[in-house]
């Protein structure tokens, strides 16, 4: 069966099996023109409201899976379906801001590309900037901001179109520990407040356990999901959670799976 996915912002997908499913991938294989098999027989079902982390070694194809989910790449085999009401937000590994534009204009970009005027979006832009705590820096240029602040701008931009599906590709990998912890907490708060569905690519076991309601562990190349770990979504994620025995147990479990994936 031919893959049904376009590059357009979103396109209605036929017959998703279950209304609670946001996105589904079946038997996905991706082979690059170089001959590298990035993904092989990948099956993934993402439910609405989930915070799913894709955890795996570098180069295992988890970023490719995320690009597939966004429609930025096409599968060689298999099918990918997205619920028709899914509105996407995408956060790259780097902040990927336009250096020539202010924070305001960067965050406004997705709305501008939808053809909306400055006047009509000012309120919305300020609202998402407030969500990431950057209202003071609305007129700053990216190069005047710290790495963590740039990432916040990038998140605000992804939220500007009020998405219900947020895809993040190792967004905090380049940040220091403290900044990363703060942004993790911000992301959790936004996930809850905005009732988002999140797919989060990471290679950090601790970050995955701390953030997720479910972790999908990838094997090494060619990538596919070898293990799915459910983390109790109801648990409050804070310092106490980080110190808890259950957190430690999940980390051990995920690490064990990951080292098996590396082998």
């Amino acid at each position, binding site marked *: 069966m031919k893959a049904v996915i376009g590059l357009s*912002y979103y396109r209605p997908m036929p017959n998703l099996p279950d209304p609670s499913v946001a996105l589904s991938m079946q038997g996905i294989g991706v082979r690059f023109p170089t001959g590298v098999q990035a993904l092989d027989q990948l099956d993934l079902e993402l439910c609405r409201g989930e915070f799913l982390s894709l955890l795996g070694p570098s180069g295992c194809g988890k970023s490719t899976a995320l690009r597939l989910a966004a429609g*930025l790449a096409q599968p060689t085999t298999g099918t990918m379906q997205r619920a028709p009401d899914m509105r996407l937000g*995408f956060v790259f590994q780097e902040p990927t801001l*336009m250096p*020539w534009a202010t924070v305001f204009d960067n965050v406004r970009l997705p709305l501008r*590309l*939808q053809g909306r005027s400055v006047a009509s979006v000012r309120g919305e832009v300020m609202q998402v900037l407030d969500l990431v705590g950057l209202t003071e820096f609305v007129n700053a*240029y*990216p*190069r005047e901001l710290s790495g963590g602040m740039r990432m916040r701008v990038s998140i605000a931009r992804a939220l500007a179109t009020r998405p219900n599906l947020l895809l993040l590709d190792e967004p905090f990998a380049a940040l220091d520990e403290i900044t990363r912890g703060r942004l993790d907490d911000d992301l959790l708060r936004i996930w809850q407040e905005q009732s988002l569905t999140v797919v989060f690519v990471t290679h950090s076991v601790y970050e995955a356990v701390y953030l997720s309601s479910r972790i999908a562990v990838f094997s090494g190349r060619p990538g596919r999901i070898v293990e799915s770990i459910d983390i109790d979504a109801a648990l409050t994620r804070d310092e106490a959670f980080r110190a808890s025995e259950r957190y430690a147990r999940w980390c051990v479990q995920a690490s064990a799976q990951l080292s098996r994936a590396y082998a």
Partner: protein
Amino acid sequence: MSATQRQSVVAPVLVCVLALALWEGVVRINHIPHYILPAPSLVAQTLWSDLPSLLPSMWFTIKITAGALLLAVVGGVLLAAVFASSRRIENAFFPLAIVLQVTPIVAIAPLILIYIESTTVALLICAFIVAFFPILANTVVGLRSADANLRDLFTLYGASRWQRLHLLLVPSALPYFLAGLRIAGGLALIGAVVAEFAAGAAGRETGLASRILEASFRTEIPRMFAALVLVSMVGIGIFLVFDWLARRLLGRWHDTEMHQSSN
């Protein structure tokens, strides 16, 4: 004016003054006749007295340079847009552009002067040929330099071709284009002067090169120097204009224009 700024003005001025004083001293002490090497004071005097006859020539040189530059900008940018949109066209035509670039203009100028009846047009073409390559080459690189993730982002949000061009490609190419423009500015002046030497034109509607030639026939060395000073001043003027333009356009966002404020 800050201390560092003052330093950046004072040091070069000091070097200039010292060099001129040395020149003046050498000429006076050795009693070098003015028809071999005039002292700076005599050059200044000649410049002042000959200004009425030199100014129209300077104006003519400026017109040729500016006209050629304008043509180079229009031609270079349009061709760059075509090249950047198709590798095949670039591969087919780029060698031709390189041939034009590497062939010394002095060698082509006599031919152009033979084929083109109007000397003014011929001069314009010569100056255009040398000025247009750096604009073309830099703009092609610039248009291709847009960040891959930003391109993906534009795809994700369904940007139109026009939006992609003016919101992403043009701003990405701007620093490259301006660097090319700065080089082209100097080259256009060189082209205009060299072509005029080749033309050996005389008469009213001619530029500074013709004044230098005439003066050399009459061994009016101080007048040669005076015209030379004016050529340099045109060059410096072009440089300052483009430097100012780059500062204005790139302002706060680009690294190359940020050194002064960040140091």
